[in-house]
């Protein structure tokens, strides 16, 4: 039976994404990658069908980003859905800024805006220092830590930072400047898994 590879996502990309999130010493069998390749392709089909059904019922011809987010939510991927909505809005903002940039030359932080990567590549990212914005109920010493905040932007669950796990990540726009991702405030709410379950802190960083 001929493998219809062009109907699947490329195995190299799939394998790369898998490797990124596994520990360095982990190995992945070829069959596992192939299975993942099939699963993610089926995921896309599955969600698209749901989204397209909705469009059809509403007499719309075009499946857009929000339909995908809706479908994700409808099919039980509510975590994804929430993240994707934010991602989508950032993307639309980026497109808008891009067209505005074409009119006027940018004055500040042009690098971030032109390269405009919401997350930064590991090799170009400078570590962020987190400052404590709010304190929760525990009075434990508050570690400040450096980390790649943006990497966590879309990593909602089970990320461990020195014994903390991330509860919630949000991005606030800075009020004084025009909406520019490089000056947004990243708020991360973390809680300690180790001891007090009610301990929480908000960390703020300028991006």
């Amino acid at each position, binding site marked *: *039976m001929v493998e219809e590879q*062009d*109907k699947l*996502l490329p195995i190299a*990309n*799939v394998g*790369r*994404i*898998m*490797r*990124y*999130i*596994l*520990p*360095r010493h*982990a*190995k*992945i*069998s070829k*069959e596992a990658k192939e*299975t*993942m390749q*099939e*699963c*993610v*392709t089926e*995921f*896309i*089909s*599955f*969600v*698209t*069908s749901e989204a*397209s*059904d909705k469009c059809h019922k509403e007499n719309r011809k075009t*499946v*857009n*980003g929000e339909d*995908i*987010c809706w479908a*994700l939510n409808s099919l039980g*991927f509510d975590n*994804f859905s929430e*993240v*994707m909505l934010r*991602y989508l809005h950032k*993307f639309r903002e*980026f497109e808008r800024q891009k067209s505005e940039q074409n009119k006027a030359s940018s004055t500040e932080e042009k690098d971030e805006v032109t390269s*405009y*990567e*919401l997350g930064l*590549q*590991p090799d170009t*990212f400078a570590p962020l220092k987190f400052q404590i914005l709010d304190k929760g109920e525990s009075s434990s010493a508050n570690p400040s830590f450096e980390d*790649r905040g943006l*990497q*966590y932007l879309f990593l909602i669950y089970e*990320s*461990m*930072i020195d014994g903390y796990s991330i509860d919630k990540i949000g991005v606030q726009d800075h009020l004084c400047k025009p909406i520019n991702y490089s000056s947004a405030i990243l708020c991360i709410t973390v809680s300690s898994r180790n001891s007090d379950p009610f301990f929480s802190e908000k960390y703020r960083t300028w991006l």
Partner: protein
Amino acid sequence: MRQPGAYSGLRISGKTGPHSLPLARIKKIMKNSSDEVKMISGEAPIVFSKASELFIEELTKRAWMMTLQAKRRTLHKEDVVSAVIKTDIFDFLVNLVSENSGKSEDPQPVMEA
């Protein structure tokens, strides 16, 4: 601290790069998913590019937990299958992963002479 291995670069420039999934391929898969799909907005494949990463990440993490339980260091297909079976939201994949050939898009039954 566990190194955040999650995909960090979110390319929304619309181009493919070392960390992105090919948008044209995503679009093709979307079109093939059902006859009802007529038009797809430009942003939809981009949304899927990210959503697919999240998906791979989630399934891989859960599969890796199976690998660890079996005290192995190599993630095998069986770990992916176990993760699918154990997770409710992956129910739509159960048939896909349970087939021996792993192919789900073969509508024609094998005819025996």
